[in-house]
């Protein structure tokens, strides 16, 4: 029963992961009118689905990087296996709830924060509550990038900068090279490049992010004795995770898409292509070299870079500043929620505790959803002119870009 709650919650996290991150790949294509909003999220959803199936590498060690509940091979440590793995399941459940609640809250505010940080933050908080500070893998053993510092904090510092520099240089080169080309001709041409590069980002997102949930679910299955292999993932887990992230992507976190596409930079097709190419290249190069990083940080850095690289482009540093603050507090906030959830679950104990934690998740998620309806952002108004308010759509005319597309 507790296992079922963990699985459902993990899939719920995967869903919020999908819809929170649609904008990373598609915000620029939607903003420039290269793709109609519905087409963009549909394309991204399909590519996320495909991408999730392509990632068959064992993802069990995802949680290993930040909390100490597993041995080196990814199997849970024996002390967590008492009582059908309930101690471990509660940590994972509390961590997931922390991740989801924070993802929903930042989505409500229209801030693109990192889903990976939310998940890791939730798990770290739950582990601190359950095991003390020693339950967290802070720096690893020094032989490779590991632990909270190596796998979470440092990549978050350098990846947006790298992506931003690349996108800035790319944008600058593009406008230098295409000087003398009529603006209309240039915009039309670069839309194709934009669609291609955004598709690559979607595919990479599916392979990177769905894997994390697959690892968490498989860990829970092993802990409760429903799965033995530490080198394989049950097919139904893969299928469920792929579908959850694709469904989330298709629903589309329009509030976040709006902030990324319209709020940061007034973006044109060439800038969009530069930003998405920089994102795709940075994500692929880092994952090849074994760096964990957040798609969100990369995409945001790249979009900012594409604004800096074009002379005279509008870059709203105030919006960027709010995002950076959201990034800084994501990990501690999700950790706080995760820790509180663990305490509640532990205090009540057993199934009752887990049910209450799950209930709190459902109520808070429903509450935030209802709150979002008051100022709904959707495919129809996502491209309205930016009026300076993050997370709140401008009323009035649909912007020209949208109707022209």
């Amino acid at each position, binding site marked *: 029963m507790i296992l079922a709650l963990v699985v459902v919650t993990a899939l719920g996290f995967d869903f919020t992961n999908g819809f929170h991150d649609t904008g990373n790949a598609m915000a620029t294509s939607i903003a420039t009118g290269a793709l109609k909003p519905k087409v963009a999220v549909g394309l991204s959803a399909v590519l996320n689905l495909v991408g999730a199936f392509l990632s068959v590498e064992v993802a069990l060690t995802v949680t290993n990087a930040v909390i100490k509940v597993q041995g080196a091979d990814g199997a849970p440590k024996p002390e967590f296996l008492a009582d059908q793995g309930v101690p471990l399941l509660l940590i994972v459940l509390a961590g997931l709830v922390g991740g989801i609640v924070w993802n929903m809250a930042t989505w409500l505010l229209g801030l693109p924060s990192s889903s990976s940080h939310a998940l890791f933050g939730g798990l770290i908080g739950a582990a601190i509550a359950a095991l003390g500070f020693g339950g967290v893998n802070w720096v690893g053993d020094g032989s490779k990038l590991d632990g909270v510092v190596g796998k979470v904090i440092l990549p978050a510092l*350098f990846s947006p900068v790298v992506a931003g520099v690349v996108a800035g240089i790319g944008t600058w080169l593009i406008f230098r090279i295409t000087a003398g080309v009529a603006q209309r001709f240039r915009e039309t041409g670069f839309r194709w490049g934009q669609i291609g590069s955004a598709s690559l980002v979607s595919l990479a997102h599916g392979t990177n992010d769905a894997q994390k949930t697959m690892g968490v679910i498989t860990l829970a299955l092993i802990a409760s004795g429903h799965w033995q292999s530490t080198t394989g993932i049950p097919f139904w887990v893969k299928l469920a995770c792929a579908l959850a992230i694709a469904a989330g992507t298709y629903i589309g976190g329009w509030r976040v898409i709006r902030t990324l596409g319209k709020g940061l930079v007034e973006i044109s097709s060439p800038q969009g292509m530069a930003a998405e190419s920089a994102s795709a290249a940075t994500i692929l190069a880092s994952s090849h070299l074994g760096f964990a990083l957040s798609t969100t940080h990369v995409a945001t850095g790249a979009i900012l870079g594409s604004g800096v690289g074009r002379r005279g482009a509008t870059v709203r540093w105030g919006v960027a500043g709010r995002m950076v603050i959201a990034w800084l507090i994501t990990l501690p906030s999700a950790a706080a929620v995760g820790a509180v959830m663990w305490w509640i679950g532990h205090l009540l104990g057993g199934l009752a505790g887990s049910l209450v934690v799950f209930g709190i998740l459902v109520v808070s998620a429903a509450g935030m959803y209802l709150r979002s309806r008051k100022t709904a952002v959707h495919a129809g108004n996502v491209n309205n002119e930016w009026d300076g308010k993050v997370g709140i759509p401008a009323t009035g005319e649909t912007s020209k870009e949208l109707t022209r597309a």
Partner: protein
Amino acid sequence: MHNISLALDGAWKVLLVSLALGAGLPALFAIGIKAMAFGTGGDAETDHAAPHPVGRVVAMVCFAVVVAVALLGILFIVASGMGKALSFEHIYPTIVDKGH
């Protein structure tokens, strides 16, 4: 503080590879657009020059290279997802086992 030096070391590599692919490819695409405009002439360019057919050929070559590299990128994602790696030891890409 091994983590910091390891991260800086890695960040440089990521930056170099990303610059080559993430800025290089869009630049090549831009050259393609420029050549296409040169080939199309008229309203495609701000000076409304006459069309130059050679521009279209150059553009097609540029676009073909960009598409080829992008396809390689997809192949790369697929291969690493399957626990394989791309090898260029035969010049053309082949899929081999990881750690080969």
